[in-house]
């Protein structure tokens, strides 16, 4: 009896195991691609780091330092080992600083930015989306949809620059345009987070809000909602027990997908506002060809992206009974 129960539990959760395995494989592939792009593809990584004017001795020294003369597979395994133990060597530009020390605080700052943005994003888009669906075709709905149409299309840095023009330089001078020095925490001066968060929100809110609205409208038209009315169920219960649970399922998937997108989107925004996070670190390092730091940043951002997508997939299945239980 017990064995059968355990077997059944395994079968029921088989999808979870599979999805996690898929996530692990994806991360592995990402690491291969990052490695390939930085150390395998360029014919001479040392050359691309030091540039054209480098002396042969400098190139040789760098090659030795980076271990570029060893076979690729060995290089990769060493590198991967380092990544997994969070020891990726030292930064090439900020000498004597380990990569980990350099990007540690940056990672925190980016996480903070993403976290605050994510929280605001999900709450505002759900609330606005639901309200717009319930009050469809009202003037407020039309206005919101119109604004969403425009905001949806604007590239991030355009939004960011416009905000800077509006609020920090030309029109009004409420908020600082340029952020802090790289070792300060944004929490010490919260005003510096306002514009970056606002930019990210303006770029992603329209999509998620329209998603919620669309999904709500779909569910409001469903037969089972009509049936609940014909059964005499109260409107409030219909909204909370019939409409919202079904309508918000795509919203969960969409939120996670949007957050995943943001993992890449912060690069431009952080650079624009000089916000001390992973994204701006990436662009700075790319400018000076600081290979280990580039690798670390890309790996982290990509891993974040993969993990968020994984969470999205898992949540979708958890929330949809049909996918969870086996069909009869």
């Amino acid at each position: 009896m017990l064995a059968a129960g355990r077997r059944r539990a395994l079968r029921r959760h088989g999808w979870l195991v599979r999805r996690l395995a898929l996530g692990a494989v994806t991360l592995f592939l990402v690491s291969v691609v990052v490695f390939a792009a930085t150390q395998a593809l360029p014919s001479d990584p040392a050359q691309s780091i030091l540039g054209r004017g480098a002396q042969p001795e400098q190139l040789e020294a760098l090659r030795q330092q980076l271990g570029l003369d060893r076979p690729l597979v060995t290089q990769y395994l060493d590198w991967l080992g380092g990544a997994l133990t969070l020891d990726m060597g030292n930064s090439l530009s900020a000498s004597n600083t380990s990569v980990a020390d350099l990007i540690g605080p940056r990672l925190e700052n980016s996480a903070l930015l993403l976290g605050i943005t994510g929280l605001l994003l999900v709450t505002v888009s759900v609330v606005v989306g639901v309200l717009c669906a319930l009050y469809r075709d009202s003037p407020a709905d039309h206005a919101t949809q119109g604004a969403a149409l425009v905001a949806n299309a604007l590239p991030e840095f355009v939004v960011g620059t416009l905000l800077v023009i509006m609020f920090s330089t030309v029109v009004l001078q409420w908020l600082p345009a340029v952020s802090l020095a790289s070792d300060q925490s944004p929490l010490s001066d919260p005003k510096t987070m306002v514009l970056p968060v606002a930019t990210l929100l303006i770029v992603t809110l329209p999509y998620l809000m329209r998603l919620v609205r669309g999904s709500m409208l779909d569910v409001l038209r469903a037969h089972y909602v009509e049936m609940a009315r014909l059964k005499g169920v109260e409107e409030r219960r219909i909204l909370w027990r019939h409409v919202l649970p079904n309508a918000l399922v795509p919203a969960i998937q969409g939120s996670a997908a949007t957050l995943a997108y943001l993992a890449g989107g912060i690069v431009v925004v952080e650079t624009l506002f000089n916000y001390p996070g992973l994204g701006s670190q990436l662009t700075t390092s790319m400018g000076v060809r600081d290979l280990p730091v580039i690798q670390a940043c890309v790996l982290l951002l990509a891993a974040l992206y993969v993990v968020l997508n994984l969470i999205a997939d898992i949540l979708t299945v958890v929330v949809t009974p049909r996918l969870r239980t086996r069909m009869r």
Partner: protein
Amino acid sequence: MSVAEVDGLRVVIAATGDDIVEDISFSIESGEVLGIVGESGSGKTTIGTALLGYARPGSRIDAGTIRIDGVDLLALDSLALRKARGNLVSYIPQDPGAALNPALRIFEQVEEVLAAHRVGASDQERRARIEQVLGEVKLPTAREFLRRFPHQLSGGQQQRVCIALAFVALPKVVVLDEPTTGLDVTTQAHVLATVRDLCAKHGVAALYVTHDLAVLSGLAQRVMVVYAGRAAELGPTAQVFGAGAHPYSRKLVAAIPDPSARREFGTIPGTAPSPGARPEQGCRFAPRCEWAVERCAAIVPPSVGFGTDHRSWCFRAAEVQASSAALGAAAAPARTVGHAPVLEVEDLHAAYGDEEVLKGISLSLQRGECLAIVGESGSGKTTMARSIVGLMPNWSGSIRVDGQALATRARSRPAEVRRSLGYVFQNPFASLNPRKTVGDAVAMPLREFTDKGRAEIRVAVGEALERVSLPTAIALRYPAHLSGGERQRVAIARALVTEPKVLICDEITSALDVSVQATIMRLLERLRSEEQQLSLLFVTHNLGLVRSVADRVHVMHLGEIVERGETNQLFEAPQRAYTRGLLADTPSVLATPTSKSDLPARAQLAP
């Protein structure tokens, strides 16, 4: 006082004011079943939902009174109206799968009806009541079952849950909206029996909306026929169906294929007008009516009474009623064809994945005959048809056309073989590419099998369309602008354009209205009489159709042919128990109206 009274009901499209139904009046007594019958677009579903004071979004109840147990629903405020729904009058939907919330467990969906109407003082009382009603609809009451989600139930079980939902709060009136659509004959019989029992037991009045007259014959005491939003006739079922007093009632009955006798299909010229396209004055059926006189086009006919409780809205009602047999003339007798097999199937096995669907089918279609394959869903009849025509990748055995063995897939077969098999699909709304014109669709076989030039193809397409009684100008139009019947005729034209030896029809009329079905069947009859060499393999679940069109019949059940024979013999003296059960479960328009104790031949626990 009747438990349900409707007077002068008028429902309109909110945006345009065009009426969906107009001037509908009827009443239902406690314990009685009133049937509302009409074809698509007649407004019958609107009448059903109006009985709950509900108008679908986009429509609005414009006028009339609706009294349930003395309470005028249209005069109630929204809170009182909500309380009346589910409690005073309840609804059983057409599509139970869509009517149940996929994210809520069964128990909760039943319980919320009780909770909304404050039935039962405690959780235990509610629980007891739920178990009681589930038992009445013959569903398990175990905890494990109650915790299931809708997708874990079969179609029949889902419908029983919906019936339970309707009866759990003990309403006075129940509205049933085509509740057995999509269920096969056996399940349908069970569901109908359950409904009949519950209504009788609790003295509930029922309004049964349907397009299927045969179902009403065994179930409803009285019936109202609706056409284009207006009532045509209202009276005792036997009288309205047996000797109708309205031309439309007569035509409708004449169009129905019946398993008890081989008859011709009666057709009605023209199509029913939809809201907005209806004549402003006069009787709406007049443009298609053979009894029409000048008055009919000018003035809306008032109702004419016949005995107790029988009314007809026709100027010539008395004449119509007195006219002779409503049912169509006896059709041409079945052909006895010689032994000239054009299609031979031997030991056909087929499987979907691991599951074996065909377990060794053998049959032989003779030249010029019409062989019907009849069975319920799951019998394998469609799989067999698809295997023959090469759409089924996983079959074994032997299939021969004129002696030549066929490869598994259509694509692997030589052109003459492909050309010799024509196939007409079930769903006329899906079998034509919405992005291609009618002409393109019909021309496709011509382009594949012949090397005619464009001009020649155009001529051939025109001829094919004329053969199915469609105007050649229709070749330029897109399927979206055609009715279901027209589309199916295009599909038939496409199948016949390169003169195949065998025409395989896979449930070609299940998606069509009764009168449209009759037109298509008449078309097939004419084609067969014009082209004596055409052999027809007719797959269907409708025994009535089979009786009127087939020369021989094979009955399929769970992947095997259980009985075969000439049509009349099989229907009058079925050998196997399964066939007998099938015939007994099939409702017939010609059945005598039942007393409430009539139960179907095989009353068992629901699967």
